[in-house]
């Protein structure tokens, strides 16, 4: 039972490079999320999706783009990486149908360093 899977786990980028983080979930969840975690700041929502083909901005969307072409996948893109985007990125999903369906399940994280 894979749950939420993120790739890659680790990546080093040069300033200005682009990359895509892939998130896949096998729980048939409607809602998917991308968070970033920085020391002393908890988790901050970058973008989220409430269903296939939908995306919406979170707290810190600048410099990122997302796509949800398939229900099971949620891609996070960095168009032109900056050192300020050095962080740990977490993908998450939830069923989104109220009650315990709001329970959020996280992937294992992707460590990104921009030099």
């Amino acid at each position, binding site marked *: 039972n894979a749950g939420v899977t993120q790739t890659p786990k680790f990546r080093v980028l040069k300033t200005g490079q682009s990359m895509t983080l892939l998130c896949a979930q096998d729980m048939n969840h409607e809602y998917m*999320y991308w968070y970033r975690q920085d020391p002393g700041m*908890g*988790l901050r*929502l970058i973008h*989220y999706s409430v269903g296939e083909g939908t995306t919406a901005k979170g*707290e810190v969307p600048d410099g990122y783009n997302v796509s949800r072409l398939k229900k099971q996948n949620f891609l996070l893109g960095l168009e032109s990486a900056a050192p300020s985007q050095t962080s*740990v990125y977490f993908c998450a999903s939830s069923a989104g149908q109220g009650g315990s369906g*709001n329970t*959020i399940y*996280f992937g294992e994280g992707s460590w990104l360093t921009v030099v």
Partner: protein
Amino acid sequence: GIQVEQSPPDLILQEGANSTLRCNFSDSVNNLQWFHQNPWGQLINLFYIPSGTKQNGRLSATTVATERYSLLYISSSQTTDSGVYFCAARGSGGYQKVTFGIGTKLQVIP
């Protein structure tokens, strides 16, 4: 949006001790969750508890929604309980994002 505050920010416990972690939120919620992030970075959902009390082994949680706080109790702590505990809440009314507190860092020493 909703504000989530956790206390204490840091906690050191002797193995076997009990502890209480607190989460205050600024508005009514329809979603309140507790997570544990272990020292390897993995985030595990502990409780979905927008109201009431739940128990799971040595852990239990209580949310008093009318007073806008939630408590996480850890009894007979073990070194494997070390890590960061996050509270996350979502306000009521339409779709609102889930907001995380900045966490309580717990260290359990043998």
